[in-house]
């Protein structure tokens, strides 16, 4: 077959295809491969395949290497590659030997299929986002990232505090995913969403005959989480009676399903979360102090989005990329005015609110860049009152000013604390204050005995 005809055929298929010679140099690279990797054919041909394909398995289990060594094809293995934008793209790969007309092996061929949309939909369906979905350069979040591995590997009970929409479940899942229990189940129970009686049967399960409609045994969530982790969300909402039963699980690791006569021992790690101030609830007599001290072994506090506004551009970029995949759109980002309005907003709903704003904009924006008119009506109207300067911001410099002033205000004008929060060196902050002509009050956080 003539080369031109072969290239037309290869370019017409939706899967990425490339071939390598015996020295791992790319010899053919089709159009779909260009699209998925973000690398042009001209750039790819003649380069080492690991530099072009950048797969998670290049170092350890190169699929083409295995095929060339064993002669056996490999089919539909799921890995990820890094595209030219630095995004991890999940792909399914298949490999085969490349032989000449005499049957002599001259290299290998690899085909790969983009699984981004499938993976994203799977994530949306299961609500199973990973730690990689938590993006932050905020210093408080960095501290959490630093201590999280140690917490994950310990068997201790964890209490995660933070406002709604700050990502408590993601952190709970990370505690599980990086623990020795990662191969066992991670079970989520939303304590606030269930009435007391239902929560009891959901958590502990029941035996046949325990109540009228209990025709057969039903294992509870604790039993389903055996060997793994149970995540009790909104723990501050459970009734006093339920608190007693839960206390026993935490103290003795034992419980009885409804209607059962035997006691069951649970090998389950407990991670809890709340958006309430549990210590205040204890003071008010609404939450048992003994239970509080049982769950408050390791405490993580997730800062609200208004305290980590420097993360907004990264989060926006992440949501834009995600909704592009989900809605098959090609939106490049948000305008500077939109970013400025977002930066000036306080986000009582935190990251979930930001996500909803971007989703709303995706519905209204046909393509290109998300503009102010694509934002929710209420938000757009509020945008005018949040800050007039924000809406009229036209440069990155002005946005930077908003971020810095906000961080300084939050830290009582303490420059060192603000620099820490912004994740920049204090001298960088001083220079920026000077360059952006930010006026500082005569009395600031340093004078009032701050850091």
């Amino acid at each position, binding site marked *: 077959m003539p080369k031109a005809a072969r290239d037309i055929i290869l370019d017409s298929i939706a899967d990425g295809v490339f071939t390598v010679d015996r020295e791992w140099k790319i010899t053919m690279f089709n159009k779909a491969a260009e699209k998925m990797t973000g*690398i042009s054919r001209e750039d790819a041909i003649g380069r080492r395949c690991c*530099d*072009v394909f950048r797969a998670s*398995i290049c170092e350890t289990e190169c699929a083409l290497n295995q095929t060339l060594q064993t002669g056996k094809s490999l089919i539909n293995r799921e890995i990820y590659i*890094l595209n*030219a934008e*630095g995004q991890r793209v999940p792909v399914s790969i298949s490999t085969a030997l490349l032989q000449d007309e005499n049957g002599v092996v001259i290299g290998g061929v690899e085909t790969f299929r983009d699984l981004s949309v499938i993976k994203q939909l799977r994530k949306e369906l299961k609500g199973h986002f990973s730690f*990689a979905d938590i*993006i932050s350069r905020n210093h408080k979040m960095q501290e959490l990232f630093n201590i999280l591995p140690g917490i994950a590997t310990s068997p201790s009970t964890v209490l995660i505090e933070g406002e709604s929409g700050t990502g408590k479940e993601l952190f709970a899942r990370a505690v599980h995913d990086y623990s020795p229990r990662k191969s066992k189940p991670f079970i989520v129970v939303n304590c606030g969403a269930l009435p007391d009686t239902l929560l009891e049967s959901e958590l502990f399960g029941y035996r046949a005959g325990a109540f009228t409609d209990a025709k057969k045994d039903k294992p509870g969530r604790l039993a389903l989480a055996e060997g793994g982790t149970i995540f009790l969300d909104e723990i501050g909402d459970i009734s006093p009676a339920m608190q007693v039963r839960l206390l026993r699980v935490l103290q003795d690791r034992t419980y009885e399903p409804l209607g059962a006569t035997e006691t069951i021992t649970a090998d389950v790690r407990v991670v809890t979360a709340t958006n309430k101030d549990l210590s205040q609830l204890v003071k008010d007599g609404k939450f048992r102090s003994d239970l509080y001290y049982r769950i408050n072994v390791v405490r993580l506090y997730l800062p609200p989005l208004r305290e980590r506004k420097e993360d907004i551009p990264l989060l926006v970029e992440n949501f834009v990329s995600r909704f592009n995949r989900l809605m098959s759109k090609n939106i490049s980002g948000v305008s500077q005015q939109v970013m400025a309005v977002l930066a000036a907003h306080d986000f009582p709903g935190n990251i979930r609110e930001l996500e909803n704003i971007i989703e709303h904009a995706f519905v209204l924006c046909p393509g290109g860049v998300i503009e102010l008119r694509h934002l929710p009506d209420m938000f757009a109207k509020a945008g005018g009152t949040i800050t007039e300067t924000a809406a009229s911001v036209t440069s990155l410099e002005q946005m930077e000013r908003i971020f810095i002033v906000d961080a300084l205000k939050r830290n009582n004008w303490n420059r060192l604390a603000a620099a820490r929060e912004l994740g920049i060196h204090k001298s960088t902050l001083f*220079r920026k204050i000077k360059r952006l002509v930010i006026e500082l009050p005569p009395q600031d956080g340093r004078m009032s005995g701050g850091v």
Partner: protein
Amino acid sequence: MKIAIPIWQGRISPVMDAAARVLAVEYDGTCEVSRIEESLGDEFIPQRARHLADLGVNVLICGGISQPLLTLIAAQGITVIPWITGPAEQILEAYRNNRLSHPKFMMPGYGRCRRGQGRGYGQGCRQRMGPGHRQGRKRKEINQDGEILS
């Protein structure tokens, strides 16, 4: 100054997120004073960033790197020079002699990579001049926040 390179078969690892080992070389001026090769193992992403900070690394030269990992490493105050390819020793040499911008050290798609990851606050993905760079054109001073000082 301590420079780290994820290493595989004597070359820079193609994917920092999946790299198994890292080479860290410390220089005092132009003299190499220490060299250590360590396992990065199956560490999860924030731990990889922390590991480099614990090693006292000032500059990380790496191949492909995901945006989240780049953000985390840069947040540790480490200057990241991503999308570099080639033998580790040649890369160290080129960095010290300010020749890392030679096309032979750039991964395919380098321009797009930089555009993709050089936005936002730009922290950590600017190139710092090597310690061997002492003459020639006036050099730009870039701090750990990626800010051009002069």
